[in-house]
């Protein structure tokens, strides 16, 4: 540590150059931080802690529905604590462009028990249970579409025709606005939840079927056997099921968007390759200029190893400094991005593992970048360097 001031002083020998290089490194690691957040959103879609849910859907395809009669039978599977069901709706409010602002799902009231991350006041829950046309809207969607409790909202364009209106328009009464229990779950606030019984009576076809079931298990260790037991119920029927943990279900869905990991990896490879070249050049320049000074250090008795260490430490410090600032900036920017998108984007904050990977990259790049100049500094012949040769 006693050499630190030497390294620090050498780093800022040329302030402008160091500043520019720091800013380049900062840009690279800002990107690293942002892309890591993107990747982790796709690698592990956010899920609420401590819930052990299984998603039961049709084995044939996601759009195929299941008979409502399965409810009783799933409920009776040992280790199943609770079962809820839901149906995808797929309409829009006012403008087809709003479709992604507010996903509509028909649910049974028990759904709210299985999803503790949906935070709703007791009054509003009561109102939902007592109003057949009642609907609950997530806070983010309510804000974005400027909706409040008491509003009647017509939803159009779903596959399901409404017997009472004769077309695909369904009108719901907003009786509650819910929040997500954790910031990382804010994605669910872009939902409109309404009652499955109202939906089931009104719909023109497919009565008595549900889109998917959600089964809560008492212990995650039992997930596998419970899933097998649920799938066994409808084996060889015309409505075979596929039961998987919610995580696996979400992951499979997200994977269909594309190989985000590969894209992110390719971009980071290009960024880091460029960065290595850029800072490598800076370090080479810095060491070239300082050859006489390094010769003096060696004259005074600094060993080869310490000269090597000094130069390497300088390049590592350069990258770690810029990289840390970049990651910090990413850390500040991500919540701002999330807030700015009104809940549509929901990047997780930069976690410990990203910091550790980032630091490993910084140190690794620092070593790669500093090694050649450091070896040059180490191998210099004092007599030649002092004579300016």
């Amino acid at each position: 540590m006693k050499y630190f001031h030497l390294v620090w002083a050498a780093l800022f020998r040329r302030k402008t150059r160091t500043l520019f290089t720091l800013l380049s490194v900062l840009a690279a690691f800002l990107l690293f931080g942002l892309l890591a957040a993107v990747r982790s959103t796709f690698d592990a879609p956010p899920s609420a802690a401590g819930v052990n849910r299984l998603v039961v859907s049709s084995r044939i395809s996601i759009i195929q529905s299941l008979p409502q009669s399965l409810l009783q039978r799933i409920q009776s599977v040992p280790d199943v604590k609770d079962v809820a069901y839901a149906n995808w709706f797929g309409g829009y409010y006012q403008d087809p462009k709003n479709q992604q602002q507010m996903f509509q799902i028909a649910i049974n009231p028990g759904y709210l028990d299985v999803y503790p991350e949906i935070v709703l006041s007791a009054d509003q829950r009561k109102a939902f249970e007592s109003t057949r046309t009642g609907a609950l809207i997530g806070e983010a969607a309510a804000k974005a579409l400027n909706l409040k409790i008491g509003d009647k909202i017509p939803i159009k364009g779903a596959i399901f025709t409404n017997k009472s209106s004769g077309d695909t328009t369904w009108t719901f009464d907003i009786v509650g606005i819910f929040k997500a229990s954790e910031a990382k779950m804010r994605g669910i606030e872009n939902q409109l939840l309404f009652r499955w019984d109202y939906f089931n009576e009104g719909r023109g076809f497919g009565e008595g079927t549900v889109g998917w079931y959600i089964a809560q298990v008492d212990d995650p260790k039992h997930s596998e056997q419970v899933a097998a037991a649920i799938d066994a119920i409808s084996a060889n029927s015309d409505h075979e099921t596929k039961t998987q943990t919610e995580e696996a279900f979400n992951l499979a869905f997200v994977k269909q968007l594309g190989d985000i990991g590969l894209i992110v990896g390719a971009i980071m490879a290009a960024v880091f390759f460029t960065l290595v070249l850029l800072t490598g050049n800076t370090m080479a320049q810095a060491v070239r200029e300082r050859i006489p000074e390094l010769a003096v250090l060696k004259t005074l008795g600094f060993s080869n190893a310490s000269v090597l260490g000094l130069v390497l430490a300088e390049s590592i410090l350069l990258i770690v400094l810029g990289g840390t600032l970049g990651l910090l900036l990413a850390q500040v920017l991500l919540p701002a991005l999330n807030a700015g998108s009104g809940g549509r984007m929901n990047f997780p904050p930069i976690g410990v593992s990203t910091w550790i990977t980032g630091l490993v990259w910084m140190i690794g790049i620092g070593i790669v970048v500093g090694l050649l100049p450091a070896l040059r500094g180490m191998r210099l012949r004092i007599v030649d360097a002092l004579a300016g040769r």
Partner: protein
Amino acid sequence: MANLVEIRNLSKTYTRGKQKVEVLHHVNLDIAEGDFLALMGPSGSGKTTLLNLIGGLDSPSEGTLSVGGQRIDQLGEGALAKWRSNHVGFIFQFYNLLPMLSAQKNVELPLLLTKLSAAQRKKNASIALQLVGLAERASHKPNELSGGQQQRVAIARAIVSDPQLLVCDEPTGDLDRQSAEDVLGLLQSLNRDHGKTIIMVTHDPKAAEHARHVLHLDKGTLVESAEVA
């Protein structure tokens, strides 16, 4: 007095490209402890090479060289570096201070190689700066100091770890007369009052007058010696 430096049959050959250049031919020389020796000679005579060899910056091609009873011609690079840090102080024509460090930090540099604590390093460096009369300039960077002041900081750096031997390569070559006198006076007092053995390369006869002995080198051999003081 005992000999601090004993040189026997010392030769140094450089290869520059395909050419072999013998810079020193079979030099024999003893330098007594407490001596102040001026090495003179035309450029290319090998005086800096001899100085570098004595200071342990370079290794001879032939012959033996012992300083303070230790054969330094046989030391490897690492051992030589360690030896230099304990036994020799260097003073150069262009001072060779590190530009981004203050005078104080420049003087402390050699102490980083010792086991001294930070407080002790600071104290020793202050004493050395005081000795060269620059205590009040401790926090200045080299480019804020005059040439003479920079050379005095360099001298403070050379003596801070208390070596027996000071090796000076044209210490006044870049200084005006007055500053040169100050620096030479300082070297004299270090020799006289603190018992440092000093070897100084110079081509300035006035500078050489401050030494106890003067040796002349020509084409790699010692030609004559003369008592001065």
